[in-house]
């Protein structure tokens, strides 16, 4: 049994989903209520591999909302994640992916120090951030979508926004080692981490977002932000490929410029339909087939019975593990979403 821990993108989104699913007790409530709401298993999932293997899973709604971070409700935010993990473990789930902000909160607030939750001892090997698969899929999206747009990577400048994060740094390492990309632009808030990353890579220019955007042929967005940023598309190169891997989206603007293509980053398409409701809720274009790559990682670990926290901690993602998860991703029928 695999599990997915997820959350909705805003209070407004949460209210509309609760209304749609027929939970009026939750639909009419403000942030205060969501700060007290317990985790719930709201979907059961059956996934069939290309190999014919069938697995079962459960979706755990943590009731976390990004507004909890924006309004400094940190205790509530951390409770949501810990309680959702405990809920997953109590329900006997072997391997659970921490979607969206869940893994970021776990890491930033040092939640591994909390081992005992009520009468449950958390077993961290039952959880994965899913970031290795997400990073792998984003790299494949860079390679394949750039081809679709006629952008030659050997001539291209790629900006990574959120470069020092777990996914961002893995994307940088892969693009450096596995592609002939001409130039990497490293964008992030923490200057010290940026310097460390640049030293590790032995390349890459550290720039601010405003400096980097007009220079980039491809922009990879993997920053963790409760709200998206506004972009003036006239300042971008044309053509420009924007791969938005944020959840909620890093881009607040609906870019409608003929020279700019925006691709949802870190999303995979499965070759066969998946029986579930949750991807309708997060507004995937083809909800029966498209899903977050981090969620797919827990499915892959279940298919392969690799019951271990395959992705864990910060900046631990290796190229070898990206290859390994990439191979089983293809084997079981997942493909990167393309333009």
């Amino acid at each position, binding site marked *: 049994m695999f599990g997915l821990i997820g959350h909705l993108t805003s209070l407004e989104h949460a209210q509309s989903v609760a209304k749609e699913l027929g939970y009026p007790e939750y639909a009419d409530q403000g942030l205060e209520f969501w700060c007290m709401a317990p985790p*719930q298993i709201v979907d059961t999932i059956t996934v069939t591999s290309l190999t014919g293997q069938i697995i079962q899973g459960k979706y755990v709604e943590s009731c976390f909302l990004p507004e909890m971070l924006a309004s400094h409700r940190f205790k509530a935010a951390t409770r949501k994640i810990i309680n959702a993990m405990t809920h997953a473990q109590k329900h006997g789930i072997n391997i659970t992916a921490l979607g969206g902000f869940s893994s970021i909160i776990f890491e930033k607030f040092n939640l591994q120090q909390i081992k005992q939750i009520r009468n449950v001892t958390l077993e961290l090997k039952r959880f994965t951030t899913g970031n290795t698969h997400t990073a792998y899929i984003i790299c494949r999206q860079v390679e394949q979508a750039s081809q679709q747009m006629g952008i030659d990577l050997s001539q291209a400048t790629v900006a990574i926004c959120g470069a020092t994060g777990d996914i961002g740094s893995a994307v940088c390492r892969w693009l450096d080692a596995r592609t002939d990309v001409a130039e990497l632009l490293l964008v992030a808030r923490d200057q010290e981490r940026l310097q460390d990353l640049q030293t590790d890579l032995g390349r890459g220019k550290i720039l601010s977002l405003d400096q980097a955007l007009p220079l980039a042929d491809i922009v990879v967005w993997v920053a963790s932000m409760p709200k998206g940023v506004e972009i003036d598309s006239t300042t971008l190169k044309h053509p420009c490929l924007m791969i938005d891997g944020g959840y909620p989206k890093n881009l607040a603007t609906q870019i409608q410029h003929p020279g700019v293509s925006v691709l949802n980053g870190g999303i995979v398409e499965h070759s066969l339909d998946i029986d579930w409701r949750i991807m309708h809720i997060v507004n995937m274009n083809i909800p029966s087939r498209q899903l977050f790559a981090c969620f797919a990682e827990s499915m892959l670990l279940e298919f392969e019975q690799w019951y271990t926290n395959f992705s864990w901690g910060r900046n631990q993602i290796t190229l070898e593990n990206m290859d390994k998860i990439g191979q089983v991703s293809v084997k079981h029928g997942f493909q990167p979403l393309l333009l």
Partner: protein
Amino acid sequence: MPQLEASPEIDFHSETYRDAYSRINGIVIEGEQEAHDNYIQLTELLPQHKDELLRLSKMEGRHKKGFEACGRNLKVTPDLDFARNFFAQLHHNFQSAAAENQVVPCLLIQSLIIECFAIAAYNIYIPVADDFARKITEGVVKDEYTHLNFGEEWLKAHFAEAKADLEAANRQNLPIVWRMLNHVAADAHTLGMEKEALVEDFMIQYGEALSNIGFTTRDIMRMSAYGLSAA
């Protein structure tokens, strides 16, 4: 991203702490006393479970003594008048149901609501308790899970015929719990216990119990949040 603020050091012997503790300690002692009495009263409604119920009742009596020792340790006199008022409405509802031989509301009040409330409160209290009280409370909370289990098992076995009564009893009693929580939120805060966390832990425990009994996730989300927003 900013870090969680460190919990401020608690002075267990300050006037403010001991004043708040007198009411919370009173509630816990009175709660264990009522539980003790309720389980004895339940033997009349469920004579075939008499031995088990008397065993649970005795445990509640021991818990009461443990919490009295916690109060003495901090040189606090428990405010039992406050505590009896605090439980008055739940007490009244239990007595009314018992007088009419209605087992289901009695079990919902004692075995589910009060036990879940106790488990939530004790679990939230343990990390912020003084050393003496922490040890006592850790022992107590383990027992409370077995008490919850008694009610769960009985209601699970009688789920089909008890379902409607459980829902009605939930509607009648859960709003009282939220009012009780609000009534002690400030004192609990003084002891380092946040209302938000208490509500969440209660809903988790209560939701688990309802799930074990046989309710669906949809029922649980509706029932466990009943009346919360109005409180």
